[in-house]
């Protein structure tokens, strides 16, 4: 589990360094692939714990604890992991669907938190593009997650995804 956390942190830091997104401070959440994997391989509680720890540690490492980016990441990750947990429970969608839904809510959560942190609704200007781009991001993380789990599954026990 700790290994997964480390990977998640590294992914998050790399993503911050590349600065992919149009909105200052927002991220597309490729580190979420780890959250997704933990959600399916372990439990919702584990996924939540890992996700929150990841945001916290990245905040500390990047020196931006309690800054606007931190709150936006927190908002995005928290909303995303809760919705993904619920979606997984309904067993209505597969891992790809859950990932895409998670990605959308990750962006929504970041935008929501962003409004509070910036103190203005200016961030909504980017909402259409961010929500749209979150779809391929979710698909990619979903595909990676799915592949990882099936590979893991061939080495270990069966996991329902």
């Amino acid at each position: 589990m700790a290994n997964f956390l480390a990977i998640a942190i590294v992914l998050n830091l790399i993503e911050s360094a590349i600065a992919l997104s149009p909105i200052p401070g927002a991220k597309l959440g490729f580190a979420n692939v780890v959250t997704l994997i933990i959600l399916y391989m372990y439990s919702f509680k584990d996924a939540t714990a890992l996700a929150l720890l990841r945001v916290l540690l990245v905040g500390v490492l990047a020196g931006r604890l309690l800054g606007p980016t931190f709150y936006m990441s927190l908002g995005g990750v928290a909303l995303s992991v809760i919705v993904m947990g619920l979606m997984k429970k309904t067993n209505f969608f597969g891992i790809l669907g859950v990932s895409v839904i998670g990605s959308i809510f990750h962006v929504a959560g970041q935008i929501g938190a962003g409004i509070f942190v910036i103190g203005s609704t200016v961030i909504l200007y980017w909402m259409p593009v961010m929500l749209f781009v979150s779809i391929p991001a979710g698909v990619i993380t979903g595909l990676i997650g799915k592949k990882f789990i099936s590979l893991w599954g061939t080495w270990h026990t069966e996991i329902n995804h």
Partner: protein
Amino acid sequence: MEEKKTQKTKRDLYLIVGLFVILGGIFIYFQFFKTQQEASRAHIYYGSTSDPIVTIDFQKQQVTVNHIQSVPNQYDNVYPLIDENQHTVTLLGDYEINGVRQIVVITYDFGLRTVQITEEQSPNNICSREGVSNGKPLICLPNRVRVEFETNTEFDFIT
């Protein structure tokens, strides 16, 4: 078990395609809508207030200072500083280097109706990388400075 799985995968695909179409449509609509509009004014905000500190009026070609930044005594100047020759507005940002707050320089162009953050200090200088804008909000989080545009919409018959 296998059938459930393919059922779920099918739903995933429908979901993805559906979302792609809906969100894509919304995105395209807003993109089109945005390019239709022309900026009438740009407002510079500092901090979390919804009251702009400086307003740049492209139509009247003038820059107005609405408020003065309250800065500690150690800083000599009164901010914001307007330089009408250079077409710049200088504010004192929140980002500190060795405890000293840094300035943020914003350049405007009446003719092109654009604004750009040209000089500032922030991690990786992300703020000045945002480039020239004629409508897209410029947000400089580390300095808590933002520039938002006001536009003429075709529905605006009141002058």
